[in-house]
């Protein structure tokens, strides 16, 4: 297989949502001496961009997006450790993501994480039932510019406000933007608590995140 063919097939494995193929091709690429950064940019990123186009046109469904994202993630796990010291994958931003304290809802938050990852963000998922302080400390450690906080219950919504307040107390509010989501959440709530944005679903969350980090949507 030629180098061009490996890269094309790497992209196709993401488009087809075949994580096993993606990993095999990534290993093969390294064995053949391909530049891992080229493999990421011209293979995986090209592939995930195509998945995004197919989703935007209505041809692909959410599972296609997620499985495509998983294929990309699996191949990245092979290729990233092989990057040279001065090489770094281009990312749109670093995001800390989690579900607030008292709330065990996970699927929506995970879906947002998958979508953000697939669209070029580096996501640190801190999990569910997390107090505001955990979001803030994780953002500091990851050098994140975005926090995504999910709340699915009316009773846990005030936890999102606490995150905004604790960021202020920690002196990080200017560096870190806060986006919130969850079934009972509205733009009005985001405005009220001083969050930077609200997204209705995982697709809108990507658009919002891009907007918040200043990338054209």
């Amino acid at each position: 297989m030629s180098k061009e063919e490996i890269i094309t097939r790497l992209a196709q494995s993401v488009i087809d949502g075949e994580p096993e193929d993606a990993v095999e091709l990534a290993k093969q690429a390294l064995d053949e001496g391909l530049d891992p950064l080229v493999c990421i940019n011209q293979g995986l990123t090209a592939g995930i961009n195509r998945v995004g186009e197919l989703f935007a046109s209505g041809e692909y469904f959410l599972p296609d997006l997620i499985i495509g994202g998983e294929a990309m993630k699996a191949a990245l796990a092979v290729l990233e450790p092989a990057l040279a010291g001065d090489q770094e994958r281009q990312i749109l931003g670093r995001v800390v993501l989690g579900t607030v304290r008292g709330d065990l809802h996970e699927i929506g938050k995970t879906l947002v994480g998958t979508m953000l990852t697939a669209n070029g963000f580096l996501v640190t998922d801190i999990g569910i039932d997390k107090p505001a302080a955990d979001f803030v400390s994780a953002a500091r450690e990851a050098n994140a510019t975005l926090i995504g906080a999910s709340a699915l219950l009316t009773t846990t919504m005030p936890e999102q406000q606490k995150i905004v307040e604790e960021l202020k107390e920690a002196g990080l509010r200017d560096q870190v933007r806060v986006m919130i989501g969850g079934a009972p959440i509205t733009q009005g709530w985001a405005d009220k608590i001083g969050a930077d944005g609200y997204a209705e679903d995982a697709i809108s969350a990507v658009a919002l995140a891009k907007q918040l980090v200043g990338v054209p949507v």
Partner: protein
Amino acid sequence: MPGLEPIRPQLKLEVLNPDELASIKAATLHVLEQVGIHVPSERALRVFAERGAQVDRESQIVRLPPGLVMDAMNLAPRSYQLCGRAAGTELALDGTASYFCTDGCGVYALDFETGQQRASCKDDVAKMARVSDYLSSIAFYWPMVSAQDHAWTAPLHELDASFNNTVKHVQTETVMGEKAARYAVRMAEVIAGDAADMRARPPLSSLICTIAPLGQDRQGIEAGMVFAEAGIPVGFMSMPNMGLTAPVATGGALAAASAEVVSAMVLMQLVAPGAPTFYSIVASVMDPHSANYINAIAEKYLCHVAGVQIAHDWGVPVLGGAFGAQNLEAATWQHGRDSVYNSLMVPLAGADIVVGLGLLRASTLLVPEQIIFDDEIYHTCRILARGIDTSDDGLALDVIAEVGPRGHYLAQRNTRQHLRSWWFPELSHPQRPMHESAPPDIRRRARAKLDKILREHQTQPLDDAATAELQAILEAAERELDA
């Protein structure tokens, strides 16, 4: 052309048990023998008389002995196929599927451009044939409206517009009279290639209405005899208005309606033994104040299902009735209510073919986007009739185990694979690709889909020779019939 998606019901609906079916058959035979049928056709009277029926020439009443009826009906095939002019359009009337067609034959249309009501025309027939060529819900095409821009040859122009704009089977419900029928047969021969191919793969069939109570239409049965002899499948539909043209009680209405239909089918078998024929009852109830036809009432739905069972009890295919809503506007509560009962009940009863999608105001008005609404109801019924998948693939135990407690199914290949084959109700639940929002008004969404089909779908054209032959037949018919 997207592939056909007939309804293949796993769920079954019956409103008559075997004893009740036997009662209706006995009552039908009684009516045929004792009361008789008005048959105002010299040719038909001669055929009946020659074969042992009691014929009163003066009153034109024919009384049929039960033996004659049973022998003739036993010649009528239970299964045969209707065909279009392309591969994949064959409809096997064998009890395994319900194939739906468009409604007909309206006389008004809301203009495609202005939206104003006007008399229907040939171009309406052509446009809707092209839309029907695209929709997977439409297995065969009834010319939806009358080609009123043509005179006595309008029914033949409707066929011309249909054959030129859909590869699917065409069923005429307007070609009446011996002469017009002969021209229609010639047109069908052109589409099929020759007379032998037309018999083997008929691209045309015909539906003819009886006249309730207990009468035949001369032009109708004389056309029917021409079709039967040529091998064109021909069906008869009784449309009794209970309380006015049939007993108000459902049992009697069905027995009388059945006598009309069966007498015509017997005639077809007498002139062309083994001819492919079908049966149809579309009964309803009289408005007790105006004597008008109530289009959506419970007794009608019951009779539709009963008609399907009675036909199969006689051992013949059946055309069921569905849709054809009374209301004046698309996308209303009334439209949904009127359409859903029979469009689900009739296929669950096992109707082989079913009319029909796309008209309003009791099948008189073409509202172009109406067919898109009916298409969505149709597919909903199609999925409902399929029932629950309890196969290994349907139970998906391996996937349940893989996801486990508290996980999700979005990242499963099984989910992706199944979603690809799912049908989604795009009108009532518009899918929303990124950066694009669907029009909020459902009628605008339906219209947008219709316009897209008209803009983008091209029917596989007839070859030039066939188009020219059809034109020559039309010109000959105009010289003879319009004169």
